[in-house]
């Protein structure tokens, strides 16, 4: 069997794929966080909970309404994103003129409320969400066995990331967002409805989290706490990448997933901490993050 640095090729590639898939989730979530932070200047602590709500909405939608996976992939981000818009419109907007720390506290509180409510209703043990039939099984690539669903997650997440990047960097709507991120008061003086833009942006970021949640539902146990554990890592990813760029969030997410995956192969004990070690290094050498703009 082919060996890579003393590890069988299949094991190496398997962990690499796992890492990439995790990285795709990091990318989707940190992307949403970066977009929200850019315009609202709020660290959205409810992001993990909104990801979890996405997974739960898929699960409950299937259980009680018979909504299948594909429909959920479209509907759930819209519904949870809509919920996000209500949160922005009726809660975040009221404290927008205060120190942004209040926004952090509010979203943190919301996360606790969402999680607590679902723990109360469904308990903490995770539920299983069936993988759609067409994505069951795996592909034998010769050098490794690739589970079809993981391949799909990778493709779907990357497509969504690229779509978001394109929307923000290459369209007129995205130019509004970029300009609003820099100087929203001037945008207002040009006649742009900035409050509406903020509501839509928050909804979009939350929708991205919910999309990631639906993608995650067949992979991980769907439980009320699934978001909070992930979010800590995603925050580290965001710190590493820096809040500056959309592409930065995507690349850092994927990169950190790969580093984490490979650490599992060579030094499994450090797999859970390696991202934080990278974070410490980056903070020491480039405090604004790899892609962040130096102040």
């Amino acid at each position, binding site marked *: 069997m082919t060996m890579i640095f003393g590890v069988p090729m299949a094991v190496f590639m398997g962990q690499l794929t796992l890492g990439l898939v995790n990285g795709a989730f990091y990318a989707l979530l940190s992307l949403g966080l970066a977009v929200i932070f850019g315009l609202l200047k709020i660290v959205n602590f409810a992001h993990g909970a909104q990801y979890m709500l996405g997974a739960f909405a898929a699960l409950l939608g299937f259980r009680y309404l018979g909504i299948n996976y594909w429909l959920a992939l479209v509907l759930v981000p819209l519904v949870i994103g809509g919920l996000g818009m209500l949160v922005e419109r009726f809660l975040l907007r009221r404290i927008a003129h205060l120190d942004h720390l209040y926004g952090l506290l509010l979203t943190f509180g919301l996360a606790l409320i969402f999680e607590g409510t679902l723990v109360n209703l469904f308990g903490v043990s995770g539920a299983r969400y069936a993988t759609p039939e067409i994505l069951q099984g795996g592909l034998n690539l010769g050098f490794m066995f690739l589970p079809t669903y993981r391949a799909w997650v990778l493709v779907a997440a990357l497509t969504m990331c690229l779509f978001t990047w394109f929307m923000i960097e290459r369209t*007129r709507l995205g*130019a*509004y967002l*970029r*300009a609003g*991120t*820099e*100087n929203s*008061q*001037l945008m*207002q*003086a*040009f*006649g*742009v*409805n*900035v409050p509406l833009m903020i509501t839509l942006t928050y909804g979009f970021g939350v929708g991205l989290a919910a999309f990631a949640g639906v993608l995650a539902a067949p992979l991980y146990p769907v439980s009320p706490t699934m978001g909070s554990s992930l979010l800590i890592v995603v925050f580290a990813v965001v710190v590493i990448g820096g809040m500056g760029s959309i592409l930065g969030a995507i690349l850092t997410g994927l990169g950190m997933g790969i580093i984490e995956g490979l650490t599992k192969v060579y030094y499994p004990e450090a797999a859970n901490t390696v991202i934080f070690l990278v974070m410490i290094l980056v903070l020491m050498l480039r405090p604004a993050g790899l892609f962040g703009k130096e102040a």
Partner: protein
Amino acid sequence: MMTANAVATEPTARYQSREMLRVKDLHAFYGESHILHGVNFDVRQGELVTLLGRNGAGRSTTLKAMMNMVGRRTGSIVISGQETLSMKPHHIPRLGIGYCPEERGIFASLDVHENLLLPPTVSSGGMSLDEIYAMFPNLYERRKSQGTRLSGGEQQMLAMARILRTGARILLLDEITEGLAPVIVQKLGEVLMLLKARGMTIVLVEQNFRFAAPLADRHFVMDHGQIVEEISAVQLPTRREHLNSMLGV
């Protein structure tokens, strides 16, 4: 002084034209500090007026207050016949008003072309991209550059050019010549003459009196958040010394 008389609108013609702006007893506050103390002035269609005064006299704040960009305001601001004091900030530009901030406000994350296309159209009849690029050939050459990579003069031209595209008929221009080379200041003067010829109504906050004098129909001198003097272009030659002493030049 030949140019001043040539460019300035005849006073008789001025009073026949429509009132575009009327600011009455305008007070403005930033938090606890009271910046404007009852500003009164009016601008008629096609007029170019200046707000002169020392730093901190309240000239920029007056423009910002008109755009609803300061904290609390009282009094009255009528734009094209509409009271705007209770209007949301993003509705005010749609009355056909274009604002060019003192710090220029060029966006670093957008290239020159994107910066130019950014402000939404507020009414029909704005300049086309071709016309704008013909007026500012430098911008065309640098259209792919990042907005903030331009020189100060080019950034200023970009800041002006982008509000010409929107169809705004009233321009509020804040210190457009500040820190620019004489040749660029001259170019901006030519642009303002052209805009005046097109019937634009312009409020110019200016430190460079030599630049403003031949362009303006009337000058309003501000001090301590109030208009303390109005001087028409015709009165200017005899009042120049007095004005210089007021402005501390």
